[in-house]
């Protein structure tokens, strides 16, 4: 099947895109001025002008930049105008020297260079006196990136080392940027939104190459691993919101661009360790015991020269050991059934081959350990070529992961082992080809392997034993062993090869950059979803016994098992090829104005088409059997920078361009996984019937990896095939695309301060979503609300299951087609001020406004989640609507946080105690009012938007009764408390129209260094997290909490969320009048503290570091 889109649409899109781009380009020129630079993802550059004292430019001056740590030297010649650019400079501090015959050498020291940024260093040279060898000047730091219109925030090694960090994950520092949507309670480890865009639109790259887990659209290692990259190995990283350099691609949200550190000419090293356990953690926000745990983290780094000024090495490691006790069902907590439990253990041991069965139900520990190793060699092959080789290895062992609600009755047999093993090897060759030509070549091989296994995935053994106490678990009256939820032979493996080459050529006022990027990703995913119906939650199958006697006799009453038709475990393996080619011209139009104009072409394609599904084609006339290739992705970009004074101190910048993003490859996996229907086997007949449960004889000999689990009933009966669900691609699918534009101004204020203001706009198209092809058209409308219902009125019930009645074809369940109807629009502004009070005391403050709108706020993964999550207004769940269609799905994005205030800084207190801190105050996450029930009869409960009635018009179930007045008063009170609802009276509530509580978090660190010997030193560190909560506890009077748990100081620092999003529930449906009667849910808008297990309360961590 060839993917052919209507040509008129494609042509129109390209034409519109170019027209829009030209319009913005012209608009930008109206206010933009000179100076610009060229970003690169792993290096920075120094540029400037060399003038004689007379003011005349000094042509052909030799400008040398020497890295003070590694001795790397790069040189450039000034042009006729005295200007120069030194490129390919790894981040670090440089000494810049000018040499002109007849003039004294001029030297600037400690010139900082950061990734992707330009540092301006101008010289005025004097005629050489006989005795003067040179003029040495401490550089005046130009703190402004004068390289163009990029909006990027830099986190350097100093901040990484000095600021408090709870998990030593470098991505935690992204919260220093207000453009990043912070979400307490969810680690930033796996996915994070930048600039109001979907998290899967974020591209993480390390050393200029891809560092993402493409399958789930998250960073490599995912959300479970504490950290995948040693903090000790990070030099700098940027959060790039608008990166116009054509080298930047594959992002519709933002880029986290990390550069690792290398060795220098000095041998140096450090060892580090920290400790935290429950004794360091305050009780929960509602006085809950934090639970028992302990975690130690450790790190080391050593670096130095292999050959001085020639080759250097760096090696680092970071690790964690965490233990958390678990107490499952055991003899100790099941005293009333001791006899039965002992018999159960005996049967398990003697008849089912479970060694030492009782021990499997004794308390055990969950592990969460990680080890990362990093090595890097930088080798200056010669004056023109520099080779960097580096490798990162991460090994995560999340063993005995256990949920005491779901797994309690199974003991340790149900704990699952999750591990993640990743390798990433990168080689980079930087070459100076000539005086005006440079080349950077990068290669990456990466592999990430994430197996998830159960302890014993033979079928679950479930025995009904009256009296077995579930103790807040779900399995009252049951003793259970083995099996799994989703860990049945589960494996995700992702391999990547990547090649990048960038060639830069300067001629006159033009610097041309051209290059290409090819990334081949091979994904393998094997995933057996648990059963959806009857028993549920069993991914390995389940034998059910009605008594211990039946268990002993090997007489199960039932056997259940999910698998894919054809007796196989659902899996998929496919290649995805992404390649890009780009070219740009950085044109110094005047001394002050630089324009960078570029264009990038991206193509993404699945190399493997899924099998066609003839049943879908015959039932719906919808083409299947293909995967999308997007071939019309041209991204023009323009970046303008105007250096108002020509000295790099006041920069006006503007930029606009298009960007193409990725999709999580799991979307393709979902398609391949339903090439064949998933089957649910159910054997429940009596002995002798074809559908009798298979024999458990020999269970003790079956493989614990599940390979012997039966695929059929004892009598050989075929599996009962439930109505199958499918996922297929739509022919109209296109990859995500974002238009961005920004204007900004940045200036130094005096010698020690810097101020920047940026305003950004973005508009995203073609964001992935799902439609359900098997949803019937509208059948009737609800009176008074004009709400369409997709189930015929004769069989519709708002409280019932409408999933079958709402289908076009009842031979199928949901038939999901992957479309790209999602759109978004974001308005952002950022003001940042930093000030150095002294070399040891500095502060950075910022305010960020981040208002994003979209018609679907999802990111990743399952088809069900992508389809059911959207909240739709007055139309179909398949119709998200267009930009601004607030009567459909358009509304404020879940990724939007209107206001963020961030302060970070450090100072030195008396006694040499260094104090650093990070404070972030962010407005709350958005939430959508909904109605309890299936009001539009689409088969999905609890996702329909309420029609907001006035108090007098609300059709109450209690109308005409004595309770009516009280209920209307309660509704009035609810409207008064929630203006977000009240202001929408007479219409459907919009998506995300209400806002949750702000979050306020202050983390601090105290450290004190002690000199030891030989220039070495030791440092003691104390980290404090959620300090405001800790202070509040000092002043909190327990009596205050009796009425209001958030009263006074007791509420300080408590991190809360809104748990009540249901405004009404349907009490009854009047079929003749086609109208609802409602009950008001008085819990709407109520705040609750976030869970105790998240450990968001005040806590401490003690650390020690030794430098040598």
């Amino acid at each position, binding site marked *: 099947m060839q993917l052919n889109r209507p040509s008129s*649409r494609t042509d*129109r*899109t390209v034409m*519109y*895109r170019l*027209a*829009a*781009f*030209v*319009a*913005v380009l012209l*608009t930008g020129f109206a206010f933009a001025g000179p100076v610009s630079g060229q970003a690169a993802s792993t290096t920075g550059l120094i540029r400037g002008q060399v003038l004689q004292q007379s003011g005349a430019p000094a042509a052909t001056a030799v400008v040398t930049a020497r890295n003070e740590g590694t001795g790397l030297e790069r040189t450039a010649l000034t042009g006729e105008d005295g200007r120069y650019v030194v490129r390919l400079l790894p981040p670090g501090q440089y000494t810049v020297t000018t040499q002109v015959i007849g003039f004294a050498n001029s030297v600037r020291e400690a010139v900082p260079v950061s990734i992707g940024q330009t540092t301006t260093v101008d010289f005025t040279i004097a005629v050489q006196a006989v005795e003067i060898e040179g003029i040495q000047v401490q550089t005046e730091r130009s703190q402004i990136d004068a390289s163009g219109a990029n909006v990027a925030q830099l986190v350097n090694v100093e901040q990484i080392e000095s600021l408090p960090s709870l998990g030593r994950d470098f991505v935690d520092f992204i919260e220093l940027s207000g453009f990043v949507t912070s979400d307490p309670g969810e680690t930033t480890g796996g996915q994070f939104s930048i600039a109001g865009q979907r998290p899967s639109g974020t591209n993480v790259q390390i050393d200029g190459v891809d560092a993402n887990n493409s399958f789930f659209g998250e960073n490599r290692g995912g959300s479970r691993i504490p950290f995948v990259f040693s903090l000790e190995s990070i030099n700098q990283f940027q959060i790039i919101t608008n990166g116009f350099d054509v080298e930047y691609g594959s992002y519709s949200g933002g880029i986290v661009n990390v550069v690792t550190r290398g060795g220098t000419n000095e041998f140096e090293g450090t060892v580090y360790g920290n400790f935290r356990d429950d004794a360091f953690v305050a009780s929960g926000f509602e006085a809950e015991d934090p639970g028992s745990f302990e975690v130690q983290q450790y790190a080391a780094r050593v670096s130095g020269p292999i050959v001085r000024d020639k080759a250097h090495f760096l090696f680092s490691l970071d690790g964690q050991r965490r233990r958390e006790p678990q107490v499952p069902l055991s003899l100790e907590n099941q005293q009333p059934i001791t006899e039965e439990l002992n018999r159960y253990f005996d049967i398990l041991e003697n008849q089912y081959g479970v060694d030492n069965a009782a021990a499997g139900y004794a308390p055990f520990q969950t592990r969460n350990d990680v080890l990362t190793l990093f090595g890097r060699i930088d080798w200056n092959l010669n004056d023109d070529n520099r080779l960097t080789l580096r490798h990162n290895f991460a090994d995560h062992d999340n063993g005995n992961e256990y949920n005491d609600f779901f797994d309690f009755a199974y003991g340790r047999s149900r704990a699952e082992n999750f591990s993640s093993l990743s390798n990433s090897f990168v080689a980079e060759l930087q070459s100076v080809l000539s005086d005006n030509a440079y080349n950077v070549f990068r290669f990456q091989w990466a592999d990430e392997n994430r197996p998830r296994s159960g302890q014993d995935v033979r079928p679950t053994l479930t025995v009904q034993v009256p009296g077995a106490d579930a103790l807040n678990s779900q399995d009252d009256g049951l003793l259970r062993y083995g099996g799994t939820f989703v860990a049945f032979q589960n494996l995700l493996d992702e391999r990547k090869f990547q090649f990048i080459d960038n060639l830069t050529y300067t001629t006159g006022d033009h610097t041309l950059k051209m290059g290409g990027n090819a990334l081949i990703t091979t994904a393998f995913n094997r995933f057996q979803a648990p059963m959806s119906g009857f028993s549920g939650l069993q991914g390995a199958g389940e034998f059910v016994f009605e008594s211990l006697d039946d268990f002993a006799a090997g007489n199960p009453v039932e056997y259940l098992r999910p698998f894919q038709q054809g007796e196989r475990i659902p899996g998929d393996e496919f290649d995805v090829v992404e390649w890009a080619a780009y070219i740009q011209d950085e044109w110094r139009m005047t001394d002050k104005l630089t324009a960078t104009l570029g264009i990038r072409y991206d193509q993404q394609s699945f190399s493997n088409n899924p099998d066609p599904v003839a049943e879908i*084609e*015959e*039932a*719906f*006339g*919808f083409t299947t059997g293909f995967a999308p290739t997007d071939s019309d992705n041209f991204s023009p970009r323009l970046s303008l920078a105007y250096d108002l004074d020509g000295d790099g101190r006041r920069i006006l910048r503007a930029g606009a361009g298009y960007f193409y993003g990725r999709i999580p490859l799991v979307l393709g996996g979902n398609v391949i996984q339903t090439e064949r229907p998933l089957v649910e086997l159910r054997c429940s007949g009596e002995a002798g019937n074809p559908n009798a449960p298979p024999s458990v004889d020999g269970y003790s000999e079956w493989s614990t990896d599940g390979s012997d689990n039966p695929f059929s009933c004892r009598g050989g009966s075929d599996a009962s095939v439930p109505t199958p669900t499918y996922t297929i691609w739509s022919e*109209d699918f*296109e990859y995500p*695309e974002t*238009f961005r*534009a920004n204007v900004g101004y940045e200036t130094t204020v005096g010698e020690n301060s810097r101020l920047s203001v940026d305003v950004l*706009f973005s*508009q995203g*198209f*073609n964001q992935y979503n799902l*439609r359900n*092809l098997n949803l019937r*058209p509208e*059948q009737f409308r609800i009176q008074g609300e004009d709400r369409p219902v997709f*189930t*015929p009125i*004769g*069989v519709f019930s708002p409280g019932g299951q409408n999933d079958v*009645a709402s*289908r*076009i*074809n*009842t*031979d199928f369940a949901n038939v999901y*087609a992957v*479309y790209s*109807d999602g*759109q978004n*629009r974001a308005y952002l502004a950022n003001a940042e001020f930093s000030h150095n009070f002294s070399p040891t005391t500095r502060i950075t403050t910022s305010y960020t406004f981040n208002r994003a*709108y979209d018609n679907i706020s999802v990111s990743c993964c399952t088809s069900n989640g992508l389809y059911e999550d959207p909240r739709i207004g007055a139309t*179909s769940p*398949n*119709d*998200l*609507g*267009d*930009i*601004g269609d*607030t009567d459909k799905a358009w509304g404020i994005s879940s990724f939007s946080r209107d206001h963020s205030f961030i302060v970070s800084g450090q100072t030195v207190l008396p006694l040499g105690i260094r104090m650093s801190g990070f404070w972030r105050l962010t407005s709350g996450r958005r939430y959508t009012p909904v109605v309890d029930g299936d009001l539009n009869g689409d088969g999905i409960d609890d996702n329909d938007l309420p029609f907001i009635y006035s108090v007098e018009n609300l059709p109450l179930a209690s109308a005409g009764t004595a309770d009516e007045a009280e209920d209307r008063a309660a509704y009035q009170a609810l409207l008064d408390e929630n203006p977000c609802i009240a*202001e*929408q009276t007479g*219409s459907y509530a919009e998506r995300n*129209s209400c806002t949750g509580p702000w979050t306020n978090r202050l983390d601090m660190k105290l450290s004190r260094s002690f000199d030891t010997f030989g220039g070495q030193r030791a440092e003691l560190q104390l980290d404090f997290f959620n300090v405001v909560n800790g202070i509040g506890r000092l002043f909190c009077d327990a009596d205050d909490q009796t009425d209001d748990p958030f009263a006074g100081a007791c509420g300080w620092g408590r991190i809360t969320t809104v748990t009540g999003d249901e405004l009404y529930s349907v009490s009854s449906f009047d079929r003749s009048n086609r109208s609802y009667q409602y009950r008001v849910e008085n819990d709407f808008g109520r705040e609750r503290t976030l869970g105790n297990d998240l450990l968001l309360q005040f806590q401490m961590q003690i650390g020690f570091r030794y430098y040598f």
Partner: protein
Amino acid sequence: MNDRIRRTAGVAGLAALLGLAACDASISPQFEVDGTGTVEGLLYFDADNDEIFDPSDGDGPVPGVGVAVRVRDTDAVIATGTTDDNGRFAISGVIAGTHDVFFDEASVPNGVFVCENPVRTTVTIDVPSFVGVPSRNACLVPIVDVQTNAAVGDFVIVRGIVTASPSQFDENDAFLQDETGGIALFTGALNGLGIEVGDVIEVGGTVSLAVQALQLENVSLREVVPDAGVVTPEPTTTGAIAATGSTPRDPLQNRLVVIRAAELLSPFDQGGDRNASIDDGSGATVIRVESVLSPDSGDGILTTTGMTVGNCYDVTGVVSAFFGTAQIFPRTVADIVEVPCS
């Protein structure tokens, strides 16, 4: 337009000024099923109730019946047709999907019923779907409908759980009960078929009032699902049972019931020495013990059942009537449990 919309519109206007409005990628049109198929079918009289069209079994076509393909679960008609002389019809141009096929009852011959109407069929593109629809001389009805509406002589089909098997009664009676009521089956047709209490059976039969008790005669067995259900006896009183003797269509008639602590007032000296009086204090009724439970009658029944005049018993049994006198029939000795008199 509320403030939020107005603000959005304002910024959208600015974006339009920048040329962005032109960038709005058009949303793909909403999906509609693309393609049609044909519904073919056969309406026949299923003389032997086997749901298989086989003229050699007496089955025959039902011609001239109007057929409508309707939007599922609604009255909206998509397309129509008529059965031909062979009972067959073919309706083309039907949009793919699952629809209802409805037969116009007005055009169905008298005495013939299309019991499942409409029938459901799924139409796929370019692949004809076929529905074979049996018609009968009766349709499955709830037992309460037989009790309240059916006339003597009507042929009906009922389905329920066997509460008393043919082997438990002298004259091949069996009792059947569904969620709505109970009915007696008077027939030899079920005898020897192994029908047991707890089986779910579907039978057809003619309504009669033999011995002034409501029952089905000339019963034909249509389906048996062994050991598929349990009926919990309905607690009642001897007085309530006795009151139904002259009202054979009373809801308590033919049901499985249980009476508590009822005193045996007399020996089994009535009704051929198989009936006795029993009273729980609400008024006496008759307890009848069949010969399959106690081969010996009279005092032999006392011996078999262990009953003693003047003692009290919990008795489980089905309720029936004999010429205006209500009776409770225990099925086995286990249905009679001695308890203290209250």
